[in-house]
């Protein structure tokens, strides 16, 4: 006999349940697909200069603390104020393959990870639609997403900062204190993703507790 308990959990019949995140994810995926199509068209039929890829110069922003700006970088400074730079754009006019690879490493892993996160969120929302919000599958996917963001952001930040430092050392003939700057840049990039990952892992625990409560309620007449 099919169970028809009064408090049978809502199996995702409410389309608004996953909004506004569902709409945002859909928009990002569509925008990413359109952007990828445009890039592919330009790659096939024309020249493309994208983040060090293509025939143009290879540039990347490098976070270097303690740089003193020489000259009037900020015009019309009030008396008694100073300007210091945090990030500088380093460019190689005729980059080598190694420099192009380093510039690519500063942004490709991040883009790949963000796309993967968006896809995982889309899958998560699909599971919420089919199985309902309080299902073990939802808790498992949230937990996986949390660990993915945690590990992915560490890897991305590390590769990004190391690539930036390595690229800076190929551009700057002088001594570049790359390691300390890489660490500071990495920490700056990591803080928000780490908090998000902790939030996702906590949310997975909350959903798991909700699944147990839902199971109990499912047998209530």
């Amino acid at each position, binding site marked *: 006999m099919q169970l028809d308990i009064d408090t049978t959990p809502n199996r995702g019949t409410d389309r608004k349940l996953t909004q506004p995140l569902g709409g945002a994810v859909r928009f990002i995926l569509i925008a990413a697909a359109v952007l990828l199509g445009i890039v592919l068209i330009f790659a096939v039929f024309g020249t493309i200069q994208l983040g060090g890829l293509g025939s143009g110069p290879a540039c990347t922003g490098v976070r270097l603390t303690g740089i003193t700006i020489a000259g009037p970088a900020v015009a019309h400074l009030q008396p008694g104020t100073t300007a210091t730079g945090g990030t500088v754009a380093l460019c190689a006019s005729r980059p080598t393959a190694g420099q192009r690879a380093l510039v690519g490493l500063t942004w490709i892993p991040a883009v790949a990870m963000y796309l993967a996160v968006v896809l995982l969120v889309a899958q998560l929302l699909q599971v919420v639609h089919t199985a309902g919000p309080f299902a073990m599958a939802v808790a498992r996917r949230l937990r996986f997403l949390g660990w993915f963001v945690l590990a992915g952001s560490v890897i991305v930040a590390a590769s990004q900062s190391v690539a930036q430092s390595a690229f800076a050392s190929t551009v700057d003939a002088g001594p570049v204190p790359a390691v300390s700057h890489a660490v500071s840049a990495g920490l700056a990039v990591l803080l928000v993703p780490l908090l998000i990952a902790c939030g996702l892992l906590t949310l997975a625990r909350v959903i798991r507790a909700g699944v147990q409560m839902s199971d*109990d309620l499912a047998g209530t007449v």
Partner: protein
Amino acid sequence: MAAAEPGPDHAIDIHLDELLAARGMTLTQLSEQVGVTIVNLSILKNGRAKAIRFSTLTRLCEALDCQPGDLMSWRKQD
């Protein structure tokens, strides 16, 4: 008539069958009076419900003119 078999995680017997037979009432009639679906009453009758609301219990007792103890009993386990 034998009481409904208890579920695997409790030892409470539900005597809905006996009460219905004693009052000459069908499950459908009880369902209409109490406002609980026949499916849910069957789940309760067969001992597969995990819990019962006080509101449901109140309406069952009103409809069957009985006490909660008449509706269910604890079966001592070996």
